[in-house]
Structure formats: C-alpha cells, structure tokens
C-alpha cells in the first residue's frame, strides 16, 4: 500500500512540477483573494488583523478546491480512470498517494499565503508551534476529505460545479477549527488553540481512515 502511495504521489507531483498549475495559477489566485479581501476591508486595518485567520483559511479552502479538481482532471483524461483500475495499484495506496500530493501543494500554498497575510494584513505570529501544527493537521484533513469527495465527483459530467457543493459543507469543521486555532497563534493565548488543533487531528484521522477503506469502492462505482 505504501509503495503504491509513494508511486502515486511521485507521479502526481511530477505532473505538477511539469505543468506548474499550482505555482502559475493557484498561487496567484490565492494571493489575489488575500489582496481583494485587503482592499475590501482596507478602511479599517484593525478588522483586517482580527479577521486574518478566517480570511487565510477561506483562501486555503478555495485553493484546495482547485488543487483537488486538478488532481482528478488528470485522471479523467484519455481513459486514465480505467487505466488506474487496471493498473494493479492498491486503491488505498492510490488514495494516500493522491492525498499526499494534494497536501504537499497545499502546504506550499499556505506558506505563500502566510507571507501574504503577514505583509498585507499586518498579522503577528506569537505561537509558531501551534501555527505549524494547525497547518499540518488542517492540510491533512483537507487533502483526505478532498481526495475522497474528488473521486466521488470525478465520474460525473458536472464535477466542476458539484465538487464545491459537496465538499464545502464537509470542510466547515476544518474552517472553524483552523480559524480558532490560528487566532490563538496570531496574537492570542496559545493554550486556547490546542483543543481546536485536536479537533483538526481527529477530522484528519477520520477521513484518512474512511478514505483508505472506501476509496476502492468509490473508484469502481462512481
């Protein structure tokens, strides 16, 4: 399973490296979102600093939708889905590999967004360990749930519009937990953030487990 996961993640990241969709399209989009929020709320810079955690994670959520769409678009082209089913790869390995590749891209985007938030919104980081733990746990949850819903929507003709409708409500706990945890890491009391970080870890473990078990069935049936 882990050999297949490494193979799958390597392939997806190689495709991303060659196509540069994350760096040339998704990252600029993420920065634009941050910038537009900044322009909309500019008259009161205090609001920007207070809302920076929520705005950061809303931007990450939008970017994750694009990354997930992209991860399954490459499999839908020219019979890739059938080839994947015939490949002999363990479906659990495919799930973990695709989730890992999405997670790597999201972490890179989060670094870019975090720099943007610090510069544009004037946010100050006071709790680095909590900040990093929140990013990792939330990213794992986003990638795992996104991969699961991505394969579900991938077999449908209306996948581009259906995926956000399916996925965004599911990601509400991640948005809430990550925002609260970030608020604690950005100028708040770090101890207040760790329970929210625990929620994110639970969410990630739940979807990683469920995805590992259910991905094969979804790949076959959807």
């Amino acid at each position, binding site marked *: 399973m882990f050999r*297949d996961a490494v193979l799958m993640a390597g392939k997806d990241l190689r495709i991303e490296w060659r196509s540069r969709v994350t760096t040339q399209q998704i990252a600029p989009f993420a920065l634009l979102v941050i910038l537009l929020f900044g322009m909309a709320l500019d008259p009161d810079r205090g609001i920007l600093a207070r809302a920076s955690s929520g705005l950061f994670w809303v931007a990450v959520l939008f970017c994750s939708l694009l990354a997930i769409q992209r991860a399954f678009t490459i499999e839908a082209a020219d019979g*890739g889905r*059938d080839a994947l089913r*015939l490949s*002999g790869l363990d479906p659990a390995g495919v799930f973990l590999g695709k989730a890992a590749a999405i997670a790597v891209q999201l972490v890179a985007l989060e670094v870019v967004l975090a720099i943007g938030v610090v510069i544009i919104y004037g946010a100050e980081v006071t709790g680095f360990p909590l900040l990093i733990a929140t990013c990792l746990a939330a990213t794992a949850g986003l990638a795992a749930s996104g991969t699961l819903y991505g394969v579900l929507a991938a077999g449908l003709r209306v996948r581009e519009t259906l995926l956000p409708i399916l996925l965004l409500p599911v990601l509400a706990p991640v948005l809430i937990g990550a925002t609260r945890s970030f608020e604690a890491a950005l100028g708040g009391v770090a101890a207040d953030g760790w329970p929210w970080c625990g929620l994110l870890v639970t969410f990630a473990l739940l979807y990683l487990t469920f995805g590992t078990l259910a991905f094969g069935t979804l790949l076959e049936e959807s």
Partner: protein
Amino acid sequence: MTVLGRFPALAGIDLEVAAGEIVLLRGPNGAGKTTLLRLCAGLLPITRGEATVLGHDLTDRRQWRALRRRVGLLGHATGLYDELTVADNVRFWGQAAGAPEADIDAALVACGLHERLAGLLVARLSAGQRRRTSLACLLSRRPELWLLDEPHAGLDQDGRDVLDDLVRRAVASGATVLLSSHELERAEALADRVVTIVAGTTDPAMSVVPTPAEEPLLVP
C-alpha cells in the same frame, strides 16, 4: 449478459479461448466487441450468465482485482498522462504492475521509443506515437492475457509490423491474445481463429479458422 445503460450489450456470447491462442473478434460497429474485451479485463459486470477468465470467476467482483493484474488492455483510450514524458508514463504504469526496470526499458526499446521519443512529453506525440507508448505500457506489464481493441488503428506500417511481432512473441512465451479489428486482412493473418459477433451474440456459422495466405504467383 452485460447491460450498458438500458440495453443488453452482450446477450449471447459463447466463447472459449485456449491458452496461447490468438482469437480475432470481428463484427460491425456496436456488435459488442469492445464490451466483451472490457468485460474480460474485469471492467464491466455480468448481469446474467457466467464467465471465467484466467481461472477468475467474473461474476465475483472480489476476483476482479487479481484478474486485472494478469491482463493488459490496449483500448481506444491510451490512459497516458500528457504532462509526463513517454519514459515517465511507461515507467509509472510498469512500476504500478510491479515490473522490474529491465522489463520497462526492454518495452521502450521493443516499441521503438528508447531514443529521442523517450524524453518527449506525451502531449507532443502523434496519435500513432501515443499508441506505441500505450503498447509499451502494456508490454512492460507482461500480461498473461492481451486484450487488444483495434490495435492497428493509428499506427503506421512500421508500427503495425512491430505490434504483430510483439503479439507473436508474447504468444510464443505463453500469453493468450483476444483482439478486435476492422483491418481483417492483417488481423486474420495474425489470428489462429476468427469469431464473429453480431448484436452482442457470437455467430458460430460465421466463425472460422483463417487459412494462410497463398503464395503469390511468380511472374517470369
């Protein structure tokens, strides 16, 4: 029986293929040839009747995964990633099937993809080159059952000769081949037996063993 949508795509297939045999499926468009090949690959369910491929009962979905590891399907779609090179694609699908590096390299060489073409992005290939790459992916897996759907389509004369040669070599090393083709002259020359499918049903009266082509008359 296999149903696609609301209509039965295969309703009366009676076919037994011996190990090491090359069987050509022929019939008009929509007869069910592609459906039969996909069914043999464990990609479609059987709604009625029974089928066994390489000892795997196709009515039992739990056996599909084990079967898929042993078959190779060359279909209309290539399953290739446009953003990867030819070598990357063959390497990925070969490694997915657990093929050793030597087999992957040998497949690239056998399909004429080992030099300049190996480093080209698949997006830049012609249809025939994509077909060769797809064939190399299949070859690297060393399947026991080759399922070839219109394998000559898109290939140039050299590519067709390479394909036929690879099929004969695979059979010589113990593989079995089931192919569909509209290029009957070439495909019949390759096949041990021809089976005709009409409207999802095998037609025994139209199924024949092809005779070898006669030697051309020598004109002094």
